[in-house]
Every structure is written in structure tokens, then in C-alpha cells.
């Protein structure tokens, strides 16, 4: 089929009580069934509306408040899909698997692909030198059941986020894909989206059409918020991205959506309530084959072709989420600025409707190793509103802005072809495509 109906469900996960010691299997299953009761409603609603596939969030069945010991009763042994198993038909074939059985039956009874994130456990012994002391591996695992309830994909999260000490790193990278009548799918989880392995490899080497993305993403305003970052990734990588986020306003977790290379089809961002949200949208099954498929961008072309804008004012440094940026202030209502850090120079041309005295903006550059919750190299050009008019607050979390920009053009001398462009408006709303465009020479610019 040329198109398909995708669904994602932002689930307000029912979290277990914090315990120092593991609960019983029965108590664990009770909590997981409460979450699956909610997921079941979303699956049924999506199926009734014609969805072919539904994605639910990372940790959506049991939450994230665990130690290595206390998560154990929530885990099941998840076999490799090559065993060709429909848990709804043979629930006991691989031992105790009530969660896999219920998810498989949800898919089978509603004739819809169901994507969920649960916990896998594998015994090991001293002959395996890497075997943990407690004699088992525990994996953060995505599973996919097709519309007959068959287990068609199992993915162990490769890039764990630092606080996920309840899980083990898989020994080897798993590149998990599967074919459907509506295109080839890849799958990974949350923090993996920053990676080359598996995120870029699935797209560039295995040529998937769509990516399934369960996530539990806590937003870090203004640059690491779920919706702008994930939609930018889909656009830059040229694939569909079905992103289902957990919903928990205490942890700033919200922001799910269905994104295609050309547009943000639908998204949801809600920091006001504790409600879940189902989203559906039609997607092209094979976006690469579409005439509207975005042309490749040479991200450094424009910036390397112009002279840096001279400026009499001095730069200043500021921290954004543990990364030390080099900033320069936008002092006037219109102008051209350049700020550099190491090999990266960022250029900005802009025009404000008016220069407000109660708001300050800065152009920032970062070129270096990010080291906090994982280690990865970044080159970032960013225009940000500062928290207050005190320039030491540039880079700190912000939520609203009143300064209106009539024109803007942002570019950088990037040394990488993997650049994700994002525009976030006041209230953390995504800047709609009608306001900006990406030129082939690498400018994020307002539409004239």
C-alpha cells in the first residue's frame, strides 16, 4: 500500500510505589496490567479508526523507578522473533509470559501492529566473563507484534541513558528491521536517536522507510525538547518517525508525534494535565519514492561562502545543559552577527518587529564533546532567548517569549552533514513549516 495510518499514544504511565526490595511477580503483574488496561483502550480506539500500527512509550508498562533488583519481577524472557511465536496462541511455549501474551492478543484481536517497551531477562553463568554477579542480563526492550499477534521484532536498547542502571548494555549492536505491506520499519529507543549506531545505520545502510520510536523523553528547554528535536531528526534523515513519549509533567516528559520528511503530521505537547493522548495520521509508506522528498542539504555551504560579520561587541560564555557555549548578544532590532567556537562559526541575519527592553536574545556556538548523560560530539548554532535580561541566564530553561522576528537566517560552518534544524516558538510550540524553510546551502531562514 502506498500509504498507511499510523498511531502513537502518549501514555501517562502508572508508576509503581518506590520500594527497596523487589515486589512479588503477582504485584508486578498487577501494576503492569493497570498500564496495559489503559494501552488497551488506546489500541482499540486506534484500530477502530483504521490504524495499521500503534506505538506506545518506553517504560510504558512499568515506569522507570527501579533498581537492578526491584525491576526483576517485571521482566520476562523474550525470545528472538526467528522462533515464529504468537504468544496469544501459545502463551506457555517459552514459560511465564503474561505481558507478551496480553500484548500479542491486543494486536491479534484488533488486527493492528502493536509496539511496546518491556523488560527482557536472559540467564548467564560464570563461563560468560561479562555475566553480572546476579547471573542474568536485563535489557530495556522494544517488542513488535504484527496484526496476527506474532512477535516480529525484538530490540535491546543499545545506548542506555546514564540513570538506567537497572538495565545492561547489550553486548552487540542489534539492527532490527522488519517488512510490512506498508514499508520497511526500523526501531530504536529514546537516547538511541543521538547515535550513529543504530539510528543512522538503520536509515542510511538498511534504508528503512519508517522508524518506530518509543521514548521517555524529559524536555530540556529550549534545545533538547522532544517535539522539535524528533521532528528535526525525521526531516534531516528523510524518514517517517513515529514517536510515542511517556507523559509525566513532574519529569517534564511530554511531546509525541508522527513526523514525515516533509512535515510534522501531528504532534502533542501538554505540560498542563496528566492525561494521555492518542494521535493518528496517514503516512507515505515509502517516502523516498515521493516527488516531494526533500533534496539533500550542504549544511556548511552558505556559511563557508560568506565573510564573518564584524562586531565591536565582545563575546561571552554561558552554559546550556553542561555545554559551554560562546554567545554574543543581539543588541539591536535588526542586524548581522557572527559568533565562533573552535572550528564552528555561526552567522545570523535577523529583523525583529521591535527590540523589547525586557527581553534579551543571544546567538550561541558550541563545538565539542557533550559529556553528561552520555558522550557525544556536537556542533550547534543557536539563537536563544535568555531567561532574563541578565546575560548570565542565556542558555537556561525558558518557556515564553514576546519578541517577534520578522526575518531570520541562521547558518554555520558545519563539519558534519548530520544537522537537525529546529524552530521553537513561545510556549514550546513547534514553529510550523509555513514560517521557515531550509535552503540547500544550509540556512534555516524565514519564508519571505
Amino acid at each position, binding site marked *: 500500500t502506498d500509504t498507511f495510518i499510523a498511531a502513537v499514544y502518549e501514555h501517562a504511565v502508572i508508576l509503581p510505589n518506590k520500594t527497596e526490595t523487589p515486589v512479588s511477580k503477582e504485584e508486578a503483574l498487577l501494576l503492569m496490567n493497570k498500564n496495559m488496561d489503559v494501552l488497551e483502550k488506546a489500541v482499540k480506539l486506534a484500530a477502530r479508526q483504521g490504524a495499521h500500527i500503534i506505538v506506545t512509550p518506553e517504560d510504558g508498562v512499568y515506569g522507570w523507578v527501579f533498581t537492578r533488583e526491584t525491576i526483576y519481577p517485571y521482566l520476562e524472557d523474550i525470545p528472538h522473533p526467528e522462533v515464529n511465536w504468537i504468544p496469544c496462541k501459545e502463551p506457555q511455549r517459552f514459560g511465564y509470559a503474561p505481558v507478551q501474551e496480553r500484548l500479542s492478543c491486543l494486536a491479534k484481536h484488533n488486527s493492528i501492529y502493536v509496539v511496546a517497551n518491556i523488560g527482557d531477562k536472559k540467564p548467564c553463568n560464570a563461563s560468560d566473563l561479562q555475566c553480572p554477579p546476579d547471573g542474568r542480563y536485563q535489557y530495556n526492550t522494544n517488542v513488535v507484534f504484527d496484526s496476527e499477534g506474532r512477535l516480529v521484532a525484538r530490540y535491546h536498547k*543499545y545506548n542506555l541513558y*546514564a*540513570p538506567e*542502571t537497572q538495565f545492561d*548494555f547489550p553486548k552487540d549492536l542489534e539492527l532490527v528491521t522488519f517488512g510490512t505491506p506498508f514499508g520497511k520499519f526500523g526501531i530504536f529507543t529514546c537516547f538511541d536517536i*543521538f*547515535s*550513529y*549506531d543504530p539510528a*543512522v545505520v538503520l536509515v542510511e545502510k538498511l534504508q528503512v522507510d519508517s522508524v518506530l520510536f518509543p521514548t521517555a523523553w524529559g524536555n530540556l528547554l529550549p*534545545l533538547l525538547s522532544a517535539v522539535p*528535536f524528533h521532528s528535526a531528526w525525521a526531516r534531516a534523515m528523510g524518514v517517517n518517525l513515529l514517536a510515542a513519549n511517556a507523559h509525566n509533567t513532574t519529569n517534564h516528559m511530554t511531546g509525541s508525534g508522527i513526523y514525515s520528511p516533509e512535515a510534522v503530521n501531528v504532534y502533542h505537547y501538554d505540560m498542563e494535565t496528566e492525561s494521555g493522548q492518542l494521535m493518528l495520521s496517514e503516512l507515505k509508506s515509502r517516502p523516498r519514492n515521493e516527488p516531494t522528498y526533500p533534496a539533500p542539504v550542504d*549544511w556548511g555551504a552558505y556559511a563557508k561562502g560568506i565573510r564573518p560579520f564584524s562586531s565591536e561587541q565582545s563575546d561571552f560564555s554561558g552554559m546550556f545543559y553542561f555545554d559551554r557555549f560562546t554567545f554574543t548578544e543581539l543588541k539591536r532590532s535588526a542586524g548581522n552577527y557572527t559568533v565562533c567556537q573552535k572550528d564552528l562559526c*555561526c552567522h545570523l541575519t535577523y529583523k*525583529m*518587529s521591535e527590540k523589547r527592553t525586557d527581553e534579551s*536574545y543571544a546567538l550561541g556556538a558550541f563545538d565539542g564533546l557533550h*559529556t*553528561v548523560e*552520555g*558522550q*557525544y*560530539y*556536537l*556542533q*550547534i548554532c*543557536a*539563537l*536563544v*532567548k535568555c531567561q532574563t535580561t541578565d546575560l548570565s541566564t542565556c542558555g537556561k530553561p*525558558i*518557556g*515564553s*517569549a*514576546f*519578541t*517577534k*522576528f*520578522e526575518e*531570520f537566517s541562521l*547558518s*554555520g560552518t558545519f*563539519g*558534519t552533514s*548530520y*544537522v*537537525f*534544524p*529546529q*524552530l*521553537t*516558538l*513561545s*510556549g*514550546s510550540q513547534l*514553529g510550523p513549516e509555513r*514560517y521557515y524553510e531550509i535552503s540547500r546551502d*544550509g540556512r*534555516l531562514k*524565514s519564508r519571505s
Partner: protein
Amino acid sequence: GPPVPVLAMALYGRVFEKDAPRLGQGPVKSE
């Protein structure tokens, strides 16, 4: 389009070739 109230705009680049084989870990669990 009309003037827009910008919170942030960014070109967020990833330099994969400089990365370690796995994104690695920072300090252990932050509550």
C-alpha cells in the same frame, strides 16, 4: 509568514566520526 515569537532556533549538528563506539555514560543515576 507573520512575525513569530521565537523561543529558540537551532542547527544541531552531530559529529559522529568523533564519537566513541557507544554513546557511553556520564555520572551514574541522578534521582
